[in-house]
């Protein structure tokens, strides 16, 4: 999994790329924690457009990050899930835990 980050005045956009699974969930979790610490009042958008799939440890890293974001007042949301990730978010009911935007532009708007 690769991780790219884009900073704007209003938001921090993290873009994981590839699979998030048992082999790399802890790296993913560390990126999420760093981004939340750096957000500093900005929104934190996770661009899922490059994620092939995410297994339960990646999902649990996401919900752990959401709890941390809420504690620090960071507005965290998901964006641009492809068909596989949309289905995984629905099956896991994470689409009820997170605000999910159809695109990054929609999330930023």
């Amino acid at each position, binding site marked *: 999994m690769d991780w790219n980050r884009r900073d704007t005045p209003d938001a921090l956009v993290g873009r994981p790329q590839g699979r998030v699974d048992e082999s790399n969930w802890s790296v993913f979790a560390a990126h999420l924690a760093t981004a939340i610490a750096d957000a500093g009042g900005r929104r934190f958008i996770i661009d899922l457009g490059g994620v092939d799939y995410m297994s339960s440890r990646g999902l649990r*890293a996401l919900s752990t990050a959401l709890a941390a974001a809420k504690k620090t007042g960071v507005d965290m949301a998901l964006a641009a899930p492809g068909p596989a990730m949309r289905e995984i978010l629905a099956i896991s009911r*994470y689409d009820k835990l997170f605000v999910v935007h159809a695109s990054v532009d929609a999330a930023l708007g």
Partner: protein
Amino acid sequence: MRVRFWGTRGSLPVAMRADTVRDKLVAGVLAASGRTFADRAEAAAFVDGELDFAVRGSYGGASSCVEIEAGDGAFIVCDLGSGLREFGLDAMRRAGGGHPRRYHIFLSHLHWDHIMGFPFFVPAFDPEATIVIHSGHPDAETALRRQQEEISFPVAFDWLRAKIEFVTLATDVPHVIGGVTVTLLEQYHSHKSYGYRFDAGGRSVVYSTDSEHRSDQMDTEERFEAFFAGADLVVCDTMYSLGDSVSLKQDWGHSSSLVAIDLCRMARARTLALFHHEPTYSDAQLQTIHAEAISYEALTRGEDAAVQVICAYDGLEVDV
């Protein structure tokens, strides 16, 4: 090895209401519109072949009780939930045909839904029966005696006629019981719970219920992967959605099908049985959850071997 599910619900037994039966009948009649059936066999073939399980059947409502046929012929039973009553009646029938009257019981933990069947276990009244209750908990006897005290039940534990023994099993060593190698794993649950792995004749079955896999302990899940390693069948607590298990129902001691699938995939287990169903879920909801679990397994399989996902129901038999 053969595994029989006598009770598959979590927390509380449930019974089907009249309106639920009516809804199933209406769905079946509609599906049969315009069809004619020459005899009962043709009608049965239609029901079995063309109706969804949630319409033609039910996942059942008895609480946890799973029988494993293996080893030297003694009965092996995981948990004493309300499904134990049906098992006890069938065991008496089999004992009447010559089956040994020796029972090895393995308790995941002592919560009520996992022990409530014992006061109604007919073999406990059989003076020729020997019942050995194995547990990781040293207070198993206290729990079973307490639920038969007069304030809760009219028949005292001491009135039971079978020879009843309690054995506390350690988690760090394999135990050979009834010709089967049994291993325990401590799990996260209120007052702890224990998973059991049964190995015999080159086959293996894991019973892992009432086990929460917490988000802040993901780095310890390798011990479950090792416990499930290469198992032919893993019976797992999949009571909640992952989303519920990390939010509203965090720390309730239960898990999700997604975590169970991932653990089984990493362990290279062959088949996962979804188990300990939420009592408020209808048959239609459980069927949907089963279909979603199958989809998730396919979506996240990558290059790994497939894990067959089945959904346990009262009455299901699985040969491994």
